[in-house]
């Protein structure tokens, strides 16, 4: 055990020493911001669950059924998240970490290395799910007025719950790593996991849960729940945990202990099985992971689609960076999953607009359609900001340790940044305009609102992209293993705050005069002189704001990179 603890020491020491790191600047603020967001999310989850459960409690005949169904679904979700998170973490810890060569060259048995890595992986993959599951358990405890027994059972049984997820994941990873190189395994798992998640989200959205607010449509749903009441599989770890919780909530201590014993005994058995399996297969998979797979499709020498139209007509440096960005992007499997997420986000976004119950509203349709169209500009801009945070903000950091190539090349940092800007600007502009036009068509807005939306987005996109790129250059992280993580850095948070501020400012500036002109149209009186003045004044300020959002971040980003040449 001493060796295992020694192997875990670098992790604890790194955590302890993080205060001495050169990158500590701004960490306090970042931790504060993230903690605030985390706490708000935690508190929000608790409040919503508490209110939902209290509401359920008022339904005498089926309130408990609904509450238990919710608990069971939540446990299945937590367990799936734990499995997914464990797969990615264990794959990285056991097969892909950079320090594996060093650790395996030391006089420690492979079994001990495996144990240390597995413990680390279990901890890393579980802590966040655990923390965010607490509001659920707390709300049930409070609503069902339970005592110490319930909370003790929750605390006692969370450990085997996480351990079971971790063991199952590690076993699956070790098995697959025997056949596929670890680098590919990660890509495959990430893709499958995300596809599953997307499918769930889309199916959930297509069910249109808002229908359940309507009591008439609730009756068959409740009937369905009644029939489903006792349909849990007794082979699932989530069922054991669910049974423990249900028994603890109702004070059935005997039942709770029985299911707890089931849970613990299975978790302990899994420890032995996983340890045994690791002895047989772990090192074989690790050896396979060292081999970089050759490319599945080898292109013809000197021939690439990027050399054709329109790339042939671009100036040299622009072509160089454009093709490099596109190729690196398409070949990075972690990016594909992000693309799927973006596509799903857009599909759901568009679907929501297609099912809006405009006809059922008591507000005048023309008015509502146009108000929604106006809000739609803001929503589309938020979607754009979120996509930019993921793809544009890390664009400079993505150069990584190879940034010396840019520094030593015969192009200026300004040119480099503007090339990057256009690489991202064009696709994002198309994406935003498509979003805006399609949603406006679904809303049947007036031509005035259509033109206004299209133009507003056209002027906002450069600002949002420039802010992403500029702030990414001000707060770069060239050492990051995964630049996508930089979204949660201080710079990423500042970017999100600034872009939200920018979007709100533009919308606020346009809303007043547009509302005034629009109402004049509804009253069938033409806009008056001051209304025109207000309109022109506001739109001029919007233009200046967009121009500032475009120029200032790029300038500051350039200045920051130039300063970094001195250090």
């Amino acid at each position, binding site marked *: 055990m001493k060796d295992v603890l020694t192997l875990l020491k670098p992790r604890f020491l790194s955590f302890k020493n993080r205060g001495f790191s050169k990158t500590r600047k701004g960490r306090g603020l970042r931790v504060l911001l993230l903690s605030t967001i985390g706490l708000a999310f935690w508190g929000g989850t608790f409040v919503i669950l508490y209110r939902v459960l209290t509401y359920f409690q008022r339904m005498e005949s089926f309130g408990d059924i609904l509450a238990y169904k919710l608990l069971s679904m939540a446990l299945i979700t937590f367990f799936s998240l734990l499995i997914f998170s464990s797969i990615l973490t264990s794959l990285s810890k056991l097969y892909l970490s950079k320090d594996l060569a060093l650790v395996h060259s030391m006089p420690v048995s492979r079994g001990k290395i495996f144990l240390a890595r597995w413990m680390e992986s279990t901890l890393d993959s579980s802590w966040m799910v655990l923390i965010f599951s607490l509001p659920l358990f707390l709300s049930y405890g409070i609503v069902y007025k339970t005592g110490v027994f319930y909370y003790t059972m929750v605390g006692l049984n969370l450990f085997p719950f996480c351990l079971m997820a971790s063991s199952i994941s590690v076993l699956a990873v070790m098995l697959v790593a025997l056949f596929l190189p670890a680098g590919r395994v990660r890509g495959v798992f990430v893709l499958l996991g995300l596809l599953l998640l997307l499918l769930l989200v889309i199916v959930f959205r297509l069910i249109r849960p808002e229908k359940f607010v309507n009591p008439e449509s609730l009756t068959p749903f409740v009937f369905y729940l009644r029939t489903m009441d006792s349909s849990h599989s007794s082979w699932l770890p989530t069922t054991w945990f669910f049974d423990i919780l249900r028994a603890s909530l109702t004070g059935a201590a005997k039942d709770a202990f029985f299911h707890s014993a089931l849970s613990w005994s299975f978790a302990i058995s899994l420890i032995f099985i996983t340890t045994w399996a690791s002895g047989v297969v772990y090192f074989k998979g690790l050896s396979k992971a060292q081999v970089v797979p050759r490319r599945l499709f080898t292109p013809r020498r000197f021939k690439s689609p990027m050399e054709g139209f329109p790339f042939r007509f671009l100036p040299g440096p622009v072509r160089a960076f454009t093709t490099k960005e596109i190729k690196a992007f398409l070949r990075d499997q972690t990016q594909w999953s992000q693309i799927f997420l973006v596509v799903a986000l857009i599909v759901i976004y568009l679907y929501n607009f297609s099912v809006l119950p405009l006809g059922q509203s008591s507000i005048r349709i023309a008015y509502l359609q146009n108000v929604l169209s106006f809000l739609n500009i803001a929503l589309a801009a938020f979607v754009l900001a979120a996509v930019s945070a993921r793809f544009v903000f890390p664009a400079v950091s993505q150069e990584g340790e190879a940034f010396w190539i840019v520094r*030593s090349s015969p192009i200026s940092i300004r040119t480099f940044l503007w090339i990057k800007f256009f690489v991202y600007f064009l696709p994002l502009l198309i994406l935003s305009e498509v979003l805006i036009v399609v949603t406006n068509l679904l809303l049947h807005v007036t031509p005035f609102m259509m033109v206004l939306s299209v133009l507003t987005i056209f002027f906002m996109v450069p600002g949002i992209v420039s802010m992403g790129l500029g702030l990414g250059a001000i707060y770069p992280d060239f050492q990051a293993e995964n630049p996508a993580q930089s979204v949660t850095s201080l710079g990423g948070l500042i970017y999100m705050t600034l872009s939200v501020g920018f979007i709100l400012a533009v919308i606020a500036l346009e809303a007043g005069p547009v509302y005034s002109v629009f109402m004049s149209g509804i009253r069938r009186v033409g806009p008056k002189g001051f209304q025109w003045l207000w309109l022109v004044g506001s739109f001029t300020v919007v233009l200046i704001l967009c121009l500032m959002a475009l120029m200032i971040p790029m300038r500051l980003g350039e200045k920051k990179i130039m300063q970094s040449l001195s250090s």
Partner: protein
Amino acid sequence: MIQLTNLTKWFGDVAAVHQLTLSISEGEIFGFIGPNGAGKTTTLRMMGGVLSPTEGSVIIDGIPMGEKPEEAKRKIGYIPDRPFLYEKLTGTEFLRFTADLYGIEDGLFREKSEELLKRFSLWDWANELIESYSHGMKQRLIISAALLHDPRVIVVDEPMVGLDPAGIRMVKDLFRNLSRGGTTIFMSTHTLAVAEDLCHRIGIIHKGHLIATGTIEELMHQARVQEGDLEEVFLILTEEKQTL
């Protein structure tokens, strides 16, 4: 061809390079040696335009790096000590990327890249992703990319690290040929035998100061050594400086 004047770089209150003045002529191979942390890489990074000096100037082929960095960099082939590259590109694609940056036209690119890839034994790997290359292969690819635009000056940091004996021999021959053709080579190295074998002149840097410069014979004279090799001279000179 290369003119360094009072080149100084401060990192906080530490002078990594202090008042370095050097002049290297066309076709010369200049070796830059010194203990770890002496300021070799910092000097080379300033010459390559990767780092800006606190004071002083770098002039490449008459072009000041401070005032016209893009123009000056066009004259240089910079080879860093650690081969960080765009891992998701293939070898050919990386060379194409470099060619585009330096404005090399397509026909010339094909001809030159084929020649370089073959010379550096990378031809069979040209269409594999760089992430699958070994350290030495990456190093050879960086050297190929640096030579693609026929630079007037090559600034190279530890050129032999990661290369196998055949690779070392090939790079040495290549540098000799380039030097004969008028290319100036400024290289830092820890491999004193390489410096001794290859360089026309050698500069020894210690704690940011250039403590000696000259041919091997001149350095032996400065170190008051009758017989011996560069290692002996290096140790005596850096030792002397240490005790002063």
